[in-house]
């Protein structure tokens, strides 16, 4: 494109601008089903926006949170989604460090999934704040002794890294030129950075003295394992959807390789859960098993999470069985169902039980239950809708460019 050396620097700049602008334009043009999908997400978003204005006016009283269970749906979704964001590294490592070529078609999709997930994380944090308009106090009074400060740094850094890396790679692909060399150090940096965002998120919990469920050195490792099971599951599901409804094929072989990584991560996660059960129940120390009692068997006659937690384990084991079976049977439908099971399993565990369970029992050895309210759930749905709108737009851009480039 730029060979020949006849172009002036100004002309080159114009070309670049035309290309970058026309990349964004891909988002603004599309077939009917693209607009229909965005429309549906907009409809899902609407009730939450209404309830959020109520939350701004009336306060967090519209949620099911209480003095005893002071974090709930918002913070647990944040925690879960940090895992989804971190898992982009599962495609980045094989592609960039081990030169696994078949991941070339999904690596940008993984990075854009991370971008959308981090945006949702930030929105969930914002939704949880009692005084959201004071958010810049975090930058105004940086407090390195707080893990929340480091989590903010880690998440914002990871967001910027992924936007730059994915955008540059995509625009190079669009122009038909090699990816610029200066992105290499950023890509290498993004690998430990991805691990760090989820480790720091685990540290938010694992360093608190009065919450025995969280006060476990395995929490960080378990966060990474469950992230590498749930995140790639979602990525494969998304790629299967893209494959079904668009002319772009991410390559089924790559997706199946990725599913193998899900299997390993899932086995490790289930193993870690077993370790937690062993320590809690064999030691017999009440504070160590009270929270697990509550989550899996009920405590003090309170048991609202018991079935969710049991279903989480069943789905995890069933998903594992399904994934192993589909390797033999080569059945895409079974692959899809198994991945959905794995994703739901981790979501129930991390996006529901982990945060709420940490608050049980209370510092006074009593049990207060938490049930999310309708407004709170609508706000959560709204944030997911915003995240998926962003994801849809970014994926549309990638797919249109690849189709116009002749795949």
């Amino acid at each position, binding site marked *: 494109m730029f060979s020949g050396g006849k172009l002036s620097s100004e002309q080159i700049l114009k070309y670049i601008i035309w290309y970058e602008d026309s990349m964004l334009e891909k988002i603004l043009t599309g077939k009917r089903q693209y607009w229909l999908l965005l429309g549906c997400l907009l409809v899902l978003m609407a009730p939450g926006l209404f309830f959020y204005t109520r939350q701004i006016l009336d306060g967090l009283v519209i949620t099911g949170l209480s003095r005893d269970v002071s974090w709930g749906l918002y913070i647990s979704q944040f925690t879960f989604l940090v895992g989804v964001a971190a898992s982009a590294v599962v495609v980045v490592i094989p592609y960039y460090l081990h030169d696994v070529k078949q991941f070339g078609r999904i690596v940008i999709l993984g990075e854009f999934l991370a971008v959308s997930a981090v945006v949702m994380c930030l929105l969930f944090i914002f939704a949880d704040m*009692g005084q959201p308009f004071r958010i810049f106090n975090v930058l105004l009074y940086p407090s390195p002794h*707080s893990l929340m400060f480091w989590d903010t740094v880690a998440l914002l850094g990871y967001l910027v890294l992924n936007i730059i890396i994915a955008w540059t790679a995509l625009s190079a692909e669009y122009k038909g030129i090699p990816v610029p060399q200066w992105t290499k150090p950023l890509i290498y940096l993004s690998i430990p950075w991805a691990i760090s965002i989820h480790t720091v998120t685990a540290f938010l919990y694992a360093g608190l003295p009065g919450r025995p469920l969280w006060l476990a050195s395995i929490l960080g490792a378990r966060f990474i394992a469950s992230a590498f099971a749930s995140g790639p599951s979602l990525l494969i599901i998304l790629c299967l959807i893209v494959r079904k409804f668009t002319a772009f094929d991410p390559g089924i072989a790559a997706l199946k390789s990725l599913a193998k990584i899900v299997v390993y991560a899932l086995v490790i996660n289930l193993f870690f859960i077993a370790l937690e059960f062993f320590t809690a129940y064999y030691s017999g120390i009440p504070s160590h098993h009270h929270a697990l009692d509550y989550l899996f068997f009920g405590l003090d006659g309170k048991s609202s999470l018991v079935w969710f937690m049991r279903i989480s384990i069943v789905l995890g084991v069933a998903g594992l069985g399904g994934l192993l079976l589909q390797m033999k049977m080569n059945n895409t439908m079974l692959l899809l169902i198994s991945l959905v099971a794995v994703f739901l399993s981790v979501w129930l565990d991390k996006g529901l039980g982990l945060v709420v369970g940490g608050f049980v029992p209370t510092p006074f050895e009593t049990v207060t239950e938490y049930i999310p309210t309708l407004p709170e759930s609508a706000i959560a749905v709204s944030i997911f809708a915003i995240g998926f709108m962003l994801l849809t737009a970014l994926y549309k851009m990638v797919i249109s460019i690849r189709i116009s480039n002749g795949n």
Partner: protein
Amino acid sequence: MQINRKEFLKKAGIAGASLIAGGVLYSLFKGDDIITAVVESSAQTKWAMLIDVKKCAGKPDCSACMTACHKGHNVPAIDDIRREIKWIWKADFGNVFPEHTSEYMDVAVRSQKVIVACNQCDNPPCVRVCPVGATWKRADGIVMMDHHRCIGCRYCMAACPYGSRSFNWKDPRKILSGNDIRVEYPVRTKGVVEKCNFCAERIDVGEMPLCVEACSEGAILFGNVADPESDIRRALAGKYVLRRKAELGTNPEIYYLV
């Protein structure tokens, strides 16, 4: 060369980002007041409280300390146990000291009421976790709250092993009735955390905390534990006292005589 839209956005973005980064770096290195406050805690003064559980339990219907504190600090009375705000309150002995309760203990003993409040820890987890320095420790050991800086993230509530912190789930001004509001102490807004402050505003002018003053039984002894000659140090020297969850290393400054 004319600056086009993209170029402008790029430059504006870089300028904005470096401003923010510069600000963050500046505040990081200018010497954080919280850190210094924590380091200086080996000062001349360290306030502490000794609660005589027997004296207090002798008058089970008494609520003088709680009323005085909550009135004095404009703490709204909220019926909903899930949303209530409390600085000082009563709980069963068995719930406050589960590790000192046995199954053969009489129900009457186990359900004896004990006064609880913020423990004003020497090593406060709430201060450690606060991302904006809205809760900090003074040189005299009092753990303070800045209700104007608090962003309402409630990390301190998760970090406190004693359940001593309350959150304003709704606007407290809508619950407090106008005539009862004491103008001497600020009323909070919705969406911030609050807790007992050992009546720092009274100590600073040489007065005793409201709860101490209100107790007709003399069940709360307040004093400076950094001074070996103080009454509280003498009382602590010769008695077997308990502290809540002392094994967590938070070093609570509320002691219980049982």
